[in-house]
């Protein structure tokens, strides 16, 4: 009966209840959308990073990764190639969850000279065909070709580098390496293609050459510095990492979020912004609820006094007021979540085009079309937040109600 009374009480002032329900629902909706949007933005970033460069898992010689820039250990980096590469290849080939892998060599901070202009690049030595199965750089070539057959010393540069050095296809680029004996060597490469990942952080530095060309310059044979692994199911990536680490104890096996520390940063950012937005939302909501429920209590002083006069104890009166508030939350939160889910679903399908703002975003590797992405945790968090807020917001009005003395409350009107 208490639930029935509470339910009917909230419909006594329909307009007021609708206003509260509406404001909670809009609050929940905007939270769902806003956080799905930033989640989607970051997920898109992560997906792009995986597709364009990182892939799901990378295998390295630990010394290659831990080389300290300050201690000039980078110069030794070319010789920290993967040990037992055959064993690594066998392990990867035997794992059914591994869809493909590609061998890469790498030269850090290489000096670039083009027709009087200079700069720095990270040179990737790749096997064009292997790489196709792991990343999509080949599909991002906007001019020229993704390596021409049988031609030596070809280089793939980014659109932003082409603009920076003011060069185009077939032009010559001179890269300066330090060879095996510590002697600086200059090698000329010819531009075969220009790619554009839209991620300026990446495009600013990365150039691609054939692995055999880079290895020859560095004085290496068949060795590789990096193996990029693409898996069938991204959710199983941690299990594969564990498996590979156990098989290859002397190698460093890392998944994408360990490789790109900004991904971890973004994840923390999502959690933090969820927390902050939810807190601000709760704070706003709590005042709205206090206001509404206080009005509801003050309007019903005589009735509440009568209830206590005829024997309704304080605990039950308190429970009734709290129940009324909880019911408001229980009606409005699902409405907000439903509208949120529908709008997130719609934009997940069609994408949210932010090309007007995309120049700034591209600098940081963000895509210009964002596909919002909600998560179950999000809904649980908001559901709990609304219920906690409803309970907290009902406390003051409920205390106000039980502090009424029946005789005074009845006399008030």
């Amino acid at each position: 009966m208490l639930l029935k009374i509470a339910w009917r009480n909230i419909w006594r002032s329909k307009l007021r209840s609708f206003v509260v329900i509406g404001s909670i629902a809009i609050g929940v909706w905007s939270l769902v959308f806003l956080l799905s949007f930033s989640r989607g933005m970051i997920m898109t970033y992560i997906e792009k990073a995986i597709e364009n460069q990182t892939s799901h898992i990378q295998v390295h010689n630990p010394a290659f990764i831990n080389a300290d820039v300050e201690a000039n250990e980078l110069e030794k980096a070319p010789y920290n190639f993967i040990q037992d590469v055959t064993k690594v290849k066998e392990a990867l080939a035997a794992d059914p969850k591994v869809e493909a892998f590609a061998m890469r060599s790498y030269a850090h901070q290489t000096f670039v000279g083009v027709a009087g202009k200079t700069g720095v690049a990270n040179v990737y030595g790749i096997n064009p065909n292997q790489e196709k199965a792991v990343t999509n750089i080949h599909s991002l070539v906007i001019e020229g070709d993704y390596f021409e057959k049988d031609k030596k010393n070809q280089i793939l540069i980014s659109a932003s580098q082409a603009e920076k050095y003011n060069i185009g296809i077939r032009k010559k680029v001179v890269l300066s390496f330090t060879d095996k004996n510590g002697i600086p060597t200059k090698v000329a490469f010819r531009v075969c293609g220009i790619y554009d990942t839209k991620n300026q952080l990446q495009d600013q530095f990365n150039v691609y050459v054939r692995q055999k060309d880079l290895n020859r310059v560095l004085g290496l044979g068949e060795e590789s510095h990096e193996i990029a692994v693409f898996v069938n199911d991204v959710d199983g990536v941690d299990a594969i990492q564990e498996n590979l680490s156990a098989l290859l104890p002397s190698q460093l096996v890392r998944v994408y979020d360990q490789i790109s520390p900004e991904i971890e940063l973004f994840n923390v950012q999502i959690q933090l912004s969820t927390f902050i937005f939810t807190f601000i939302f709760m704070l706003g909501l709590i005042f709205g609820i206090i206001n509404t429920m206080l009005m509801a209590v003050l309007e019903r002083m005589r009735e509440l006094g009568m209830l206590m006069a005829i024997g309704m104890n304080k605990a039950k009166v308190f429970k009734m007021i709290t129940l009324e508030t909880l019911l408001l939350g229980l009606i409005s939160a699902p409405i907000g979540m439903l509208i949120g889910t529908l709008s997130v679903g719609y934009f997940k399908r069609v994408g949210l085009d932010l090309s007007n703002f995309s120049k700034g975003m591209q600098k940081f590797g963000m895509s210009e079309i964002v596909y919002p992405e909600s998560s179950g945790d999000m809904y649980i968090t908001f559901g709990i937040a609304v219920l906690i807020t409803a309970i907290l917001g009902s406390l003051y009005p409920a205390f106000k109600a039980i502090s009424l003395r029946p005789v005074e409350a009845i006399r008030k009107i």
Partner: protein
Amino acid sequence: MSIISVKNIHKIYNEKTVPVHALQGVDLEIEAGEFTAIVGPSGSGKTTLLNIIGGLDRPNQGKVRLADTALEDLNDNQLIDFRKNNIGFIFQAYNLIPVLTSQENVEFVMLLQNRPKAEMHKRAVDLLKSVGLEDKLNQRPSQLSGGQQQRVAVARALASKPKFVLADEPTANLDSKSTADLLDIMARLNKEENITFVFSTHDSRVIERARRVVNMIDGKIESDEQQAV
């Protein structure tokens, strides 16, 4: 033996600012089965006395014993429980729960007593029949006339099987016909079921029907007379 016993009751409002002596040493004994009206002009203290008898207010001085229980020994929650199980209330403004139907309003008091559902249901229907509202079981207060609402209030007051019923100016908002009907019902319940009724009123129609009239003036009992009805 007295069902209501008040001794040397004093009640002062605004004690710290402008004290108003609402009751000044009232003694009153009421036996089970009485049909008593406490009468007097506005400000004579009759409502204050009724509130104190009903455990809704506490006196500054004096003792109140209701059905062998000394009210001063009870804390607020015990007092609420005591009211629930021993006293039926009828208010001037009916004070029904607006969101509940007549039947639910009557059942509500029994719900507070944790009575079985079937019993609650049967007793509510029986009581509403006895006040002539068998055809209004599912109407909400807003769909009833003032007289009908007050009859629901009578049924509600009796639902908890109280030791006595207190009615504060029960006819003040009613027309003559409704007043006569209500008084008939209460007189019948008093006679047939020996239910004790205590009214505060200055309505001559109620005073005429009372068997005992306690007249108050300026917070004191001026006269206390039995009368033939």
